[in-house]
């Protein structure tokens, strides 16, 4: 029994409701066998360990022993012929690897503002912890269960969500939490939990170029083989397609640069490490458009001469593996992957899926390559860029899931079909992941240049206070900016669209984002490693009622320092949300400031350590 059981998808129920919105409910139906195999990796057909990816080997050990022990690290170091320090540094880097045993039921609550555990003023994680008598971050003494929180798991349109042994459970509420506590206490295997809990309902509210076009597997490849590599590349160039991952680099140009770069081998990598909180469009695309995505990669290989491709899938989306493997196998059977693709004598290309292990930074392309190479995801020094020095130092194209799907459609249609839509500098359509305080969260595809107000109207958002465009690393805008457009020349976004209603406390949002960056900073450079932590502490201080106007001066200076002095995009953008808040919603911070002298920390709380050491808790051991 392995991960690649076919026939897991039960497609699609179309429902048309009026002319403006069209819904598509797609149910991802969980086969209990998969849950069993995810819980019992020993059942998993492990291939020869020397050919296995380091992250996969560590994942298997983590599954088997519920942690990765020093002995396991030594074993892996020997198997992979690596220094044990490299294995240890990889284990320490990725959030989903643990050096202390997790519970047999290991639960990770998302702490995102949309799919997080704070729902309607209730703390769902605390609720479950109380019911199971457990402290977050610590495994219960009997080893049955452990509960912790994790960064956004991409279920923002599914309500509060968690991962249990790597599988998402969506639409949490107090009632479901009580049932979960009961099932865990009774040690009921996941395979016997209500199947509907594992359902991820993809709802598409708006379709444009990509989501309304039909795509037949192999059709774009056939066309490309007839026209040849030059013309295929020219088509992508003519479309003006730019990367959908946020940076917006011209895709045709990237393919051309890689093609022209000399190397022993060329590689194509699909960045499916969708980690920006509030983004879930790739989750939907991976499930509904995997064929077009793999075809986009194959077309890129055709143009660049690559023979090997990787999909770097975020660990949170591991549950999509069986589906992706079945599509890959199908494509191999159809002659669309492997040796002599579609009978072409010299066209050989295949794709491997590498699953990450909980690290936002691996969405940064050079960190992703480090991770692919079995190392901690620390961004490289750029230049040189991956197009010339990527995977194993060889020319590598890294494209976002949506970009590759767009490329496949463009080659099937033509460049003008795509170029006809959008704005001057932003060709084509953009798929948005809309979530937060709105009636209709889900997937929306618009021509580039749609106004924020239009999206808000379409998603049924009322009394909107602010919108975070492009996730925590993007831009926070208020009412006066709702006429701005989402496109590269105005507000650029990789797809995250978080709506915050009037009732939301924006300081709580800023604190959430600040915590996210402090947690996800890779720790390589001083400004980001220390600065994200200082910003988090500063916001906590203000929220605790200990902030003064000097703290705002500090926060601004720190934010500018991060923007200018950090090593990579994470640090450059980590303070954007704070500067946006200070500029557009100054009340957020000012309302919490103290006008008179206040101690900058809680003196009594600071003595807690001393009380614990001396085992005292009497009145004389406290201040006041």
């Amino acid at each position: 029994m392995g991960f690649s059981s076919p026939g897991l998808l039960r497609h699609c129920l179309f429902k048309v409701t009026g002319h403006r919105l069209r819904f598509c409910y797609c149910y991802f139906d969980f086969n209990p066998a998969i849950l069993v195999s995810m819980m019992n990796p020993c059942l998993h057909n492990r291939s020869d360990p020397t050919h296995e990816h380091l992250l996969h080997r560590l994942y298997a050990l983590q599954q088997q022993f519920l942690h990765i022990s020093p002995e396991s690290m030594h074993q892996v170091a020997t198997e992979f012929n690596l220094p044990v320090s490299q294995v240890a540094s990889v284990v320490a880097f990725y959030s989903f690897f643990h050096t202390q045993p997790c519970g047999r039921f290991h639960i990770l609550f998302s702490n995102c503002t949309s799919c997080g555990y704070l729902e309607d003023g209730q703390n769902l994680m605390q609720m479950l912890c109380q019911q199971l008598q457990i402290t977050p971050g610590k495994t219960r003494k009997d080893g049955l269960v452990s509960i912790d929180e994790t960064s956004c798991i991409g279920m923002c349109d599914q309500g509060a969500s968690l991962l249990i042994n790597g599988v998402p459970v969506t639409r949490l509420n107090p009632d479901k939490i009580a049932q979960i506590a009961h099932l865990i206490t009774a040690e009921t295997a996941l395979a016997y939990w209500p199947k509907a809990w594992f359902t991820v309902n993809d709802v598409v509210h708006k379709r444009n170029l990509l989501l309304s076009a039909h795509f037949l597997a192999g059709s774009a490849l056939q066309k490309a083989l007839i026209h040849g590599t030059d013309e295929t590349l020219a088509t992508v160039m003519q479309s003006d397609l730019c990367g959908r991952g946020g940076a917006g680099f011209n895709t045709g140009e990237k393919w051309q640069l890689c093609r022209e770069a000399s190397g022993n081998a060329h590689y194509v990598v699909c960045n499916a490490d969708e980690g920006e909180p509030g983004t879930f469009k790739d989750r939907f695309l991976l499930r509904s458009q995997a064929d077009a995505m793999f075809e986009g990669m194959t077309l890129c290989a055709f143009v660049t001469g690559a023979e090997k491709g990787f999909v770097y899938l975020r660990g949170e989306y591991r549950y999509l593996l069986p589906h992706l493997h079945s599509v890959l196998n199908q494509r191999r059977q159809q002659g669309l992957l492997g040796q002599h693709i579609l009978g072409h004598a010299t066209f050989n290309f295949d794709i491997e899926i590498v699953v990450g292990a909980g690290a936002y930074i691996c969405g940064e392309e050079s960190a992703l390559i480090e991770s692919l190479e079995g190392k901690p995801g620390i961004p490289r020094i750029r230049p040189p860029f991956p197009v010339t020095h990527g995977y194993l130092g060889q020319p590598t194209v890294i494209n976002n899931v949506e970009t590759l799907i767009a490329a496949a459609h463009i080659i099937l249609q033509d460049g003008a079909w795509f170029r006809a839509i959008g704005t001057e500098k932003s060709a084509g359509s953009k798929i948005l992941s809309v979530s937060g305080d709105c009636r209709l969260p889900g997937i929306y595809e618009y021509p580039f240049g749609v106004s924020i107000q239009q999206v808000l109207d379409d998603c049924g958002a009322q009394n909107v206070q602010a919108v975070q465009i492009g996730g925590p690393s993007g831009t926070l805008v208020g009412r006066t900016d709702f006429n701005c457009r989402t496109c590269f020349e105005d507000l650029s976004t990789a797809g995250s669209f978080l709506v915050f209603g009037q009732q939301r406390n924006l300081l709580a949002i800023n604190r959430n984002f600040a915590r996210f960056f402090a947690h996800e900073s890779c720790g390589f450079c001083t400004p980001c490693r220390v600065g994200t932590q200082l910003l988090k502490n500063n916001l906590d201080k203000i929220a605790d009622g200990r902030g003064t106007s000097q703290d705002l001066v500090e926060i601004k200076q720190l934010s500018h320092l991060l923007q200018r002095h950090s090593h990579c995009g994470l640090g450059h953008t980590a303070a954007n949300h704070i500067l946006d808040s200070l500029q557009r919603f100054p009340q957020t911070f000012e309302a919490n400031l103290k006008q008179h002298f206040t101690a900058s920390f809680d003196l009594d709380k600071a003595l807690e350590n001393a009380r614990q050491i001396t085992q005292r808790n009497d009145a004389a051991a406290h201040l006041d």
Partner: protein
Amino acid sequence: MQTIHDTIIIDGQEIPFTKGQTIMDAALAARVYIPHLCHYPGLTPSGNCRLCTVDIGSKSVAACITPAAAGQEISNNTSALNDARKSITQMLFVEGDHICPSCEKTGNCKLQAMGYYLGVLEDHFPYFYQHREVDASHARILLDRGRCILCDLCVRASREVDKKNVFAIAGRGTEAHLIVNSSTGKLADSNIEPGDLAANICPVGAILIKEQGYQVPIGQRIYDQHTIQETGLQENSVKKNDD
């Protein structure tokens, strides 16, 4: 054959460079000091401390990892950059436990010297007081992670010069810490020796050779007599003579 020089401009001064040199290489060769802690001539540059950040137009780059290119107009010794460097130095201070009067590296410590150079008179940020392990297992070498600034110099020195690969950095964010590549993770079980560059390159008091801490009295130590600017330029010329 004569080497063809192009030039860059740092704070108005024209400086020659050869292909392959970084801005830092070219500057040091011309005896122009750009503050740095994680750079050491002869080791592969890392770019982690960010003290050497300079401005090229509106862009800020780390001089130690940015290739020199003809015509670059670079700002280095400006008050804005030195203020940022001061903040970065203070960040390194509060992240670890840097209590200079009780540290045997005092007077020889580059972090402390950088503080002197940039006019650091107070810590500014609240200390993190992190729990980091001390490894005193080795008979001759002490590893106090509380003072480590994660500059990666020992990692590179061990790998590139000593050819031993004794150290690595593990963990994310403020949990990043130095680890030892040995069966127990302890220094005693590694093959490090007191003569190794890795055992001597630590800019702070995180890696110390035992039993010689106070051989040179306080007041007669390196940074009691020189600035870090002088030693930084000196390091480079010593390295050049070695080549």
